[in-house]
C-alpha cells in the first residue's frame, strides 16, 4: 500500500479521479461525509445551546431546546456525540493533515492566498496549511472543551472536583468555545469563498479544475496512480 506512509500528495484510500469531461475527483466517502455532518450538526446545536447560557441576550435560544432545563440537559450529551463523531473523523483524516515544508511556504504567502493568486503558491497536497490549521485547531479545542465540559457537567460530575477546579474549567470552557466558534466561522467561510468546495462534503466529489487549482499535487498523484493501476 502506498497510502500508509504519507506521500507528498497525501491521497487517501477512496480518493480517485474519474476522466471527464468534466473530470471529477472523489474527495470524501459516504462515511466521512456522514461523520462530518453529524459533527457539524452537533457543533451548531452546541453553539446555540451554549450561547444561550453564555449571555442573557441569547437566553431565548433555550426555546429551541424546550426551555432552560432541557438546554442544560441536552448540551453535554450533544458534546459527547460531537466528541465521538469528530474523533472517528479525526482518525480518517489525520495522516493527510500532518505538517510538511510546503505549509510554511503557503503560510508565508498568505497574502496571495487571500488575494486568490494561487499561481504564486506551491503545489499542494490534499490539504493546505489553512485546512490543517482548522483540523488541528478543532482537534485541540474539542479536547479542551470535552475535558472542561465534563468537569462542569453538574448532574454527573458536580461533586467530582473542587470548586476552584470547576471555576477554572468553566472559564476555560467559555474561552475555548469562543475560539472554536471563530474557527467554525473561518471554516464555513473558507468553504464558501473557495467556490466548488461545498460539493466535496455533499456529493463527495470535486471537479478536476478545483483539484488542479487548489490541490494540484494531490491531483497529480491521483492521476499518476490511475496510470499505474487503471482498474477500478
Amino acid at each position, binding site marked *: 500500500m*502506498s497510502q500508509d506512509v504519507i*506521500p507528498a500528495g497525501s491521497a487517501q484510500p477512496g480518493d480517485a479521479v474519474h*476522466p471527464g469531461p468534466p473530470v471529477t475527483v472523489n474527495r470524501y466517502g459516504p462515511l466521512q461525509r456522514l461523520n462530518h455532518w453529524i459533527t457539524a450538526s452537533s457543533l451548531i446545536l452546541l453553539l446555540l445551546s451554549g450561547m444561550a*447560557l453564555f449571555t442573557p441576550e441569547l437566553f431565548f435560544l433555550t426555546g429551541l431546546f424546550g426551555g432552560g432545563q432541557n438546554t442544560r440537559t441536552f448540551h453535554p450529551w450533544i458534546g459527547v456525540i460531537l466528541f465521538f463523531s469528530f474523533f472517528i473523523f479525526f482518525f480518517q483524516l489525520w495522516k493527510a493533515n500532518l505538517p*510538511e515544508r510546503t505549509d510554511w511556504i503557503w503560510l508565508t504567502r498568505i497574502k496571495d492566498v487571500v488575494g486568490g493568486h494561487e499561481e504564486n503558491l506551491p503545489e499542494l497536497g490534499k490539504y493546505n496549511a489553512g485546512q490543517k490549521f482548522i483540523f488541528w485547531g478543532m482537534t485541540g479545542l474539542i479536547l479542551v472543551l470535552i475535558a472542561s465540559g465534563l468537569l462542569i457537567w453538574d448532574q454527573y460530575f458536580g461533586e467530582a472536583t473542587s470548586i476552584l477546579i470547576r471555576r*477554572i474549567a468553566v472559564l476555560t470552557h*467559555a*474561552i475555548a468555545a469562543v475560539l472554536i466558534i471563530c474557527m467554525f466561522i473561518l471554516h*464555513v467561510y473558507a468553504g464558501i469563498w473557495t467556490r466548488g468546495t461545498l460539493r466535496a462534503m455533499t456529493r463527495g466529489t470535486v471537479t478536476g479544475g478545483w483539484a488542479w487549482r487548489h490541490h494540484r499535487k494531490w491531483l497529480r498523484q491521483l492521476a499518476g496512480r490511475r496510470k499505474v493501476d487503471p482498474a477500478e
Partner: protein
Amino acid sequence: MSGTMAEQPRTAVSNPPVRALAANFGEQDMMRRSATRSEPVPTRQLTPVAKLIDVSKCIGCKACQSACIEWNDTDPGVGVNVGVYENPHDLTDQMYTLMRFTEWVNPETSNLEWLIRKDGCMHCADPGCLKACPAPGAIVQYTNGIVDFIHENCIGCGYCVKGCPFNIPRISQTDHRAYKCTLCSDRVAVGQGPACAKACPTQAIVFGTKEDMKKHAAERITDLKSRGFANAGLYDPPGVGGTHVMYVLHHADKPNIYSDLPDNPRISPLVETWKGMTKYVGLAVMGFAAVGSIVHGIFGRANRVAREDEENAEKLVEGRPVPPPPEEPAPETRAG
C-alpha cells in the same frame, strides 16, 4: 385574604399574627435579577434586615436545623454516623443550614475550644451566585438584602455553586434546581423572623434590621472582650459588600478556624473574568469574525475555478502535456 400588610419584622421572637396578612415585600422590591440587562427599579427602599449568629452563645443543639427542616418542609433523610457531629455531613438540597463543629487548640492558652458555626447562605450584598447565574430571574435580590432563588426559573446548571464564595448552593438531583437558605423570605414577608432564629434556645441566632443587629453585635463584642476574648469581632465581610447574615466571632482575627469560614471572601477573579471580560471580548471577537466574513463575502472576490483549470485537469487525466510542477527547493522525501 386580609388587605392589611404585615409589618417588616424587627425581631424573630414575636408571635405570629392571628389573621392572614398581605406580604410586605415582593417582586416590586427586587433590586437585582440574574441574567437581566436592565436591573429592576424598586419603587421603595426596604429597611435592610440581617441575621446575627453569635457563635459564642451557640450550644450546638441543632434546633435551628430542625426548625429549618420543619419550616421549609425538606427531608434530609436519615444519615450515617461517621464519628463527627455534623448531621447531615454537609449542606444538601434538603438541608439549608448546618452546624459545623471544630475542635481547636488555642495556641495561646493551650485550651481546647469547641467552635460551632451555623453554616448557610450569607445573603451577600454582592452575591456571586447571582452574578454567575445564566437564567433570567432565577436568582433575585430584594432591597431588604435577601438573596432568593426563584426555583421555576432555575435550570440546574450549577453556575451559582461556582459563583458563591461560601460554597452554599446545592443542586437537587431530583428536580435539578438549586436550593439554599432563603432567610425565610416567606416568613419575613409576613412579619416573622427566620425559623432558625425563632427556634434558637440561647438566642445565639437573632434577627432584625441590619443596623440593630450591628448594635447588638457591638454589645456582645464588648462583653466578649471583657471576658478575655481580645480579638472578638463582627464578621460582615466587605469583600462581598457586607452580608445579611453576620457572625459574632470570639476569634474574629482568624475566621478560617471556624470550619474554613473564608478570611476575605470575594467573588473569585475567575468568575469575574468569566462573566466579565470573556463575555464581552468573546462576543466582540465572534461578532467581528461573523460580520467580517459576511462583508468579505459580499464585497470580496470569490476564489473561482477557471476554465483553464478544468482543461488542465482533463489534459492531466488524459496524459496530455500540462504545466509541470515548479522547481521545489527540496523534494519531499517521505514519499514511499
